[in-house]
């Protein structure tokens, strides 16, 4: 297997893709958004329970490839108990990570999310990795329309 492929499909990514965490409905959710990737027909819903500016609970449902499921799964773990502002900052860092690569980003601040860095070598897969994050952002901002990666 090529090293790029190994970087893309790291153990952690495969694990989260197979067994996504927080793959469920969120009871008492007060923020919600739906995201589509028209390129492949993938669709996911992100639901959050936000109290006093803090994300107390988050879950996602839908269908997607290993990359999009892993990214969504890792995201739910990363933003739980963070403030909405911290989640926004994380969104920006992850976006930079998957588009520009790990050299450009403060990987320490990203923690486990750095496993997504392999995506930067696969421009066609950036949308898969970022779909959940765009949808999270839309949910936080209360966007009325479904989010599309197009």
């Amino acid at each position: 297997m090529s090293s790029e492929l190994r970087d893309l499909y790291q153990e952690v990514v495969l694990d989260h893709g197979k067994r996504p965490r927080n793959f469920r409905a969120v009871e008492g959710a007060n923020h919600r958004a739906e995201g589509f990737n028209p390129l492949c027909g993938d669709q996911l819903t992100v639901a959050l329970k936000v109290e006093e500016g803090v994300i107390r609970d988050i879950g996602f449902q839908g269908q997607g490839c290993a990359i999009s499921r892993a990214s969504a799964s890792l995201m739910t773990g990363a933003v739980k108990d963070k403030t909405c502002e911290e989640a926004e900052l994380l969104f920006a860092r992850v976006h930079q990570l998957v588009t520009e690569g790990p050299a450009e980003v403060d990987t320490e601040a990203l923690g486990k999310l750095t496993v997504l860095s392999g995506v930067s070598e696969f421009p066609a897969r950036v949308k898969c990795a970022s779909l959940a994050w765009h949808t999270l952002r839309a949910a936080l901002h209360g966007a009325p329309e479904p989010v599309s990666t197009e």
Partner: protein
Amino acid sequence: MSTSGLDVARVRADFPILHQEVRGRPLVYLDSAASGQKPQAVLDAIAHFYTHDNANVHRGVHLLSERATEAFEGAREKVRRFLNAREAQEIVFVRGTTEAINLVAQTFGRKHVGPGDEVLITELEHHANIVPWQMLCEQQGAQLKYVPVDAHGDLVLEGLDALLTPRTRILALTHVSNALGTVVPVKELVRRAHAKGVPVLVDGAQAVTHFPVDVQALDCDFYAFSGHKLFGPMGIGALYGKKALLEAMPPYQGGGDMILSVTMEKTVYNRIPHRFEAGTPDVAGAVGLGAAIDYLEGLGREAIAAHDQALLAYAEGALGGVPGVRLLGHGRERSGVVSFVMQDIHPHDIGTILDREGVAIRTGHHCAQPLMKCFGVAATARASLALYNTREDVDALVAGLHKVREVFA
């Protein structure tokens, strides 16, 4: 390697793009249903046109314009022969299948479809043969109905007569499904639609590349295809329409060449097919399309069809032997594509890993989202075959799928 009379090694030599490495591996191109590669003869024809004959058509009195006009109208005659249309004026040059269908929807459709009327299409269609009709129905207050597809990927024809009601104004259907490879029994459907006075448009984009098509034998009213899938240039395609229908249709786009005279008050529209070809056409595109048709006819379209069937059977057998692979689409007659899913592995991931092996396939919904829904999947992986593909290409795909299994083991 040769299957059924087609010398594939010779064919491959005609396609320069195939002889390259991608990702450090020899290219295995199995995405011809999305766009076909171009033989040297097509590349040469385009270069020759721009090098020697380039000028506008139907206007100039000078030699280059004469040559360009001759080349353009010569290409139209080639398309006529290719589809076995009665007359060259039944062939309208368009940008591709999508524009051809939009043209019919917005001219014939707007004239004949009114509030409460119905447009009938099928669940096999890709978006180009869905969206223009949805738009038309919305504009005119009409209803869009679908002929259903069964679990094999065949159309369910038992209820067809009930779907063809006195309000049905047109039936639009694909000849070959781009997502499943199902070959639709167009002739039978045309006969049954005509029995109720319903005209039929056929989307032939995936058919003309694989087997001979005779619009007179099918008796369809419209037939659309794209140049780029037929190993010709992108941005050119053709619409066949029966002369009487085209003549009765209002114009499509307004502009130069579609008119006989313009005064401040009134425009007299040109004869068919020029009435539907406003503005400067893609002359080099038409010339390239003509060259592609010459190329295919030189090889023999029956031989190409036999190659398609032999390779398809081989591919279905080979892919069916990969653990975890499930083939979709078991229609009675099939052509050109193998669509499949792999247990617990998303088609997108399959596509990425195959790409690193130099194997180009399509993954996704193939612009046929309603059809994917019928099969309960969001996407499939699709290997599409063309005249230049070999068993070795299929073997490379199978080897790649074993790599996919390794990654996700």
